[in-house]
Structure formats: structure tokens, C-alpha cells
């Protein structure tokens, strides 16, 4: 079959990509700017003979996901910032009991009810504080509709491979814009008879399966944590993804993800047109973070500018990676304001001037 590009809205594309990836069930609750994900599923899943359910809340959604995941089904939910906050207890249970699940967060402005403008204020939540206890989700961040499609497919594969929670994050700009993109081929759904051995399918001819996140003994729970940490270490070693632009000869490095990561590609071009050798690292996996690569580049460049649509969250990971090897500056906009090339270019000049005068502090 010849696949051709079609015009896709980000949110609908996310849902359709999940269908192509073989998602068997979706449970969710409406919230802007991702409601079109739910709406697309409400139409398409029944057409494919799969499960769609609009839940009574995000708390219910994530626990429905947990239940379906325990049955060994490919399952996901989708929400935006406040809804993801409500899911945190459930995500923690899923992470501890090691069942695969995919969650998407089409971020909006916060804190609180905030607004429905695109923002990246949930970086910490996705990367560091997905819920209580010690664990990480794999966090995938897209900067275009096509990348959203590709990462949704990857999300399910990684969730299955590592029996873990994968969060796909984008902001409302990607969720609601239209771009030409290509869907992957429609994968068949795994038949219920072929569900994995650990799944709850009925104790027929085997011992009963138990899926729990409760381990009352301290030593016991420590062992579980050690197992989880070993798994996370494996993920960190194997699944780091990022994209680089013009880093070979760069004097200055931009680090940005998602929508801003895309805007920074323009910044690289414009800065170079003005004679400043700028490169870009755009992390695709926010966790695991491309720390090693950033550390490497930090040894070669004069300074790094991290740009985000928040008050400075990923910049903490950049600084941890850089370990003082070069100055790291931050520029961010909040509340749904998208930083544009004309906002970012002067920040590069400031970084340059600061480095030249030896005054650049780790702002």
C-alpha cells in the first residue's frame, strides 16, 4: 500500500496513530486543548470494534487504564495538565505494578486552571514527579504532527517492551495545528488469546496471577524498588533520543524541546545568517534525558541557552549535564506565550556578550 501525506490536526493524528499502533481501548475525560483526541477515538474505536469509554473523571480514566492494562490489553488515556495531575496516584500504581500504559499530556498554561494556551509547565511533572514514590515514566516530546504520530507508535512499543508507563507530551500548539503527515500502516490488534503470560486472563491451568503494588515488608519493597531502578537504568542506557541541528561547528548551543525546539531551528538559521555559529539539541526523550550528549557538546561550545515555555525546568537537567563546563543561560515565557525567534535572538547576543566579558553567570 502506498502511504501518502494527508492534512492532520495534531490531536486527531495522535489518536489515529494510537489506533494504527494497535490500541485496544481508550478511557478519557474532555479537557482543552486535547479534547479532539477523545473525540477522534469516540468515532474511530467503535468503527474498529475496539473499546472507547468517556470516564467520569481523570481519576477514573487512569484506573480504567490500569484495569485494562492488567488484562494485558494495549491501552491509553489522554489529558491536559490539570487532568494529568489527577492521574498521578494511578500512574504511580501502574509504574510499581509494572503494567504497560500510555498517557498523553497536551500541556496547557498553569498552575491551577491556568488557561488553554500552549505551555511546557509540566516538564517537572512528566520527568521528575509523575506521582509518589521513586520511578520515572519514559517521557516523549514531539515538535511536529508527524513526530507526534511516530512517537505515539513508539510509546506503545516502549511501554510493552519495558512494562512501564510512557507519557507522550506536547503542547496545545502541536495538538491543535494542522500539518501534512503520514500515518503508519494499521497494525492488527493482538487477539485476547495471545495476551501475555503475566496478564489477568483467568487462572486456567496455571497458578493465579496477582498484580499489586503493595509490599508490606521493608526489605521486600526495597527489592521491588531495586528491580524498578535496574529497569530504569536499562531504559536510560538504551532509549535516549534527541535531534541535533548544526552542532558540528557551533560556538553556542540552544537546548529546547517540543514547540520551542522547532522555533529554535529557525533561530539557528537566523543566527547563522547574522554570523553567529549556533547549534541546537532538541531532546525527544525528556526522560531519559540526553545528558551525555549535552555534556559532550558543553566541552566544545562557549555557552548554552535553554529556551522553554515555562519558568525554567528542563534547564535544571541541562545544568546537571553540563556540570559547570560552560555558562548556561535560560530564556522562558509562561502563561501560554510562545517565544519567537525575535525574542530568542537577543538572548543569544546576551549570552555571547556575557561570555566575552567573562561576566556570564549561571542565570
Amino acid at each position, binding site marked *: 500500500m502506498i502511504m501518502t501525506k494527508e492534512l492532520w490536526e495534531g490531536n486527531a493524528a495522535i489518536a489515529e496513530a494510537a489506533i494504527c499502533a494497535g490500541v485496544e481501548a481508550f478511557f478519557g475525560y474532555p479537557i482543552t486543548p486535547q479534547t479532539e483526541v477523545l473525540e477522534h477515538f469516540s468515532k474511530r474505536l467503535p468503527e474498529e470494534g475496539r473499546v472507547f469509554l468517556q470516564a467520569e473523571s481523570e481519576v477514573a480514566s487512569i484506573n*480504567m487504564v490500569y484495569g485494562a492494562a492488567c488484562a494485558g490489553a494495549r*491501552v491509553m488515556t489522554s489529558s491536559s495538565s490539570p487532568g494529568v495531575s489527577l492521574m498521578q496516584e494511578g500512574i504511580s500504581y501502574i509504574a510499581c505494578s509494572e503494567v504497560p500504559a500510555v498517557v498523553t499530556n497536551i500541556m496547557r498554561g498553569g498552575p491551577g486552571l491556568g488557561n488553554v494556551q500552549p505551555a511546557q509547565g509540566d516538564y517537572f511533572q512528566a520527568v521528575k514527579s509523575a506521582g509518589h514514590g521513586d520511578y520515572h515514566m519514559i517521557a516523549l516530546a514531539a515538535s511536529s504532527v508527524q513526530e507526534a504520530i511516530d512517537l505515539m507508535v513508539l510509546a506503545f512499543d516502549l511501554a510493552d517492551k519495558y512494562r512501564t508507563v510512557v507519557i507522550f507530551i506536547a503542547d496545545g500548539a502541536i495538538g491543535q495545528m494542522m500539518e501534512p503527515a503520514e500515518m503508519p500502516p494499521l497494525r492488527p490488534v493482538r487477539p485476547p488469546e495471545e495476551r501475555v503470560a503475566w496478564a489477568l*486472563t*483467568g487462572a486456567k491451568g496455571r497458578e493465579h496471577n496477582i*498484580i499489586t503494588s503493595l509490599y508490606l515488608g521493608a526489605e521486600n519493597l526495597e527489592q521491588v524498588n531495586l528491580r524498578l531502578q535496574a529497569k530504569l537504568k536499562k531504559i536510560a542506557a538504551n532509549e535516549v533520543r534527541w535531534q541535533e541541528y548544526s552542532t558540528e561547528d557551533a560556538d553556542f548551543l540552544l537546548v529546547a524541546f517540543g514547540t520551542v525546539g522547532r522555533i529554535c531551528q529557525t533561530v539557528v538559521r537566523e543566527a547563522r545568517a547574522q554570523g553567529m555559529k549556533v547549534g541546537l539539541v532538541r531532546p525527544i526523550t525528556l526522560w531519559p534525558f540526553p545528558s551525555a550528549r549535552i555534556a559532550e557538546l558543553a566541552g566544545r561550545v562557549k555557552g548554552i541557552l535553554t529556551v522553554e515555555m515555562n519558568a525554567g525546568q528542563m534547564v535544571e537537567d541541562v545544568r546537571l549535564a553540563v556540570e559547570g563546563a560552560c555558562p548556561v543561560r535560560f530564556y522562558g515565557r509562561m502563561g501560554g506565550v510562545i517565544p519567537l525567534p525575535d525574542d530568542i535572538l537577543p538572548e543569544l547576543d546576551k549570552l555571547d556578550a556575557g561570555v566575552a566579558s567573562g561576566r556570564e553567570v549561571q542565570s
Partner: protein
Amino acid sequence: MTTIEIPADMELVYEYPKSLTEAYMHYCPGCTHGVIHRLVAEVLDELDVREKTIGIAPVGCSVLAYYYFDVDMAEAAHGRAPAMATGLKRVSPDKVVFTYQGDGDLASIGIAEIIYAANRGEMFTTIFVNNAIYGMTGGQMAPTTLPGQKTTSSPTGRDVETAGWPMKVAELLAVLPGSAYITRQAVLDVPGIRRTKKALKLAFQAQLEGLGFSMVEILSTCSTNWHMGPAEALEWAKEHMVPYYPLGDTKVSDGVRALMESK
């Protein structure tokens, strides 16, 4: 388990349920959770569904129920068992699914999930153990604690002016069109235990027939946190709980009625 040969001239009248493991239960002496576990297991055996049953344990004293039921089981977050059961059953429609929940779990933190599951007519069965207290956390006021009942968080007795009234769940869920069979039973004496078992069987049969959501609320005791001996606790429950929580069916859908009449 020790097995003994049954002489040819004798009939087997008692057997350990296949749907129960042989693990020692952690429940306090006099606790009725053990009785209810046994009844559920007997019903699963009698309906011959053990191998296709999936249970969801709550957060509460019965959090470890997955060690005792010899069926596939998951352990839910506090109150969320009905949401988990919904997700599970929707992707496994040919399985028998049940949740086992206490009153704090079901009627307080998880009240939204149980109402919506019932209202959608989810095809699973809920076993709701009402002991009028938070057992696991050491005897705090539950949504079902009776007016005037003393607990560690209502030291002078539940004051309905400030704490509201005990929640009558069987009545609450009965008004929802999606619920097929809702009943309140009690395991406070032998006739009650027998009636409870009958109700449990009907509830699972309603699920097997695809008739809708079914729930058996079971009045129970908590000797430890009521600070009573087991026998005294049974009497206290009969005297105080049964009048507030009347026993009997609160919802029998037409489908369930037909099922009852056909048996």
C-alpha cells in the same frame, strides 16, 4: 491440604473451596471478612467460573484478598476498584469480574467510581463489606458509621449535624437504571450467612447473563475497632446496624426477576 479417600458408602458433604488458597488469613479473630471470602469462593466454585474469574482487591483490611482467592487478582488504589474492573471487563468481556470493597473504600473515597460503574451497567459484581468503620487505619469514622457511634475520629460519637448521615449505598445504587441486582445482606448469624450466599450467587449469575451491574452489600462486624468480643459485635450489629440498614433486595431488574423465577 491433606486428602482422604472417601469410602464408597459415604457422600462428600463438605469440601474446601477450590477458589480459596490455603494461605492463612491475616484477619482479626471474629472478623467477618473470612466468612465472606469463603462464601464468594463457594459461589465461584458452584458456578464453575474460577478459571475465568478476575477479582479486584481494595485498599482496606481486605487489601490482601489476592492471597486468599485462588483466582487472578489485582489490587486497586483506594476506592478505584470499580474503575479498574470497568477497564478490565471492557477488554475481557468473556471473563467474570468482581470487586471486593470496604465501606470507606466504596462509599467515601470511591463513591464516584461505584455510582458511575452502576449507572453504566458495567457487567461486574461488587461485594461491599459494610462494617461501619475504617478497619485498616485503626477505627476512624466511616461513611457508614452510625449516628452517635464512637470511633477514633468521632470520639464523642458521630454527630450528624457536622459529619452528615451514614450512607445507604444499596438504596443509592438501586435508583440507577444500569444496576440489575442490588441487595443488602448480613453475615451476623447462620440464616443470614445462607441468604448472603444465595444473594452472591444471584449477583454472579446476573453478571454471567449480561444483565447489568450487581452488588451485594454485606453488614459485617469489626470486633477489634468496635472494642467488643466477636459474639457481642454480632449482637451489636443486629441491634444497631440492621435497623438503619434494612436487609433485603433494593433493586431487582426484570431480567434478574426472570432469572430468579427460572431457578
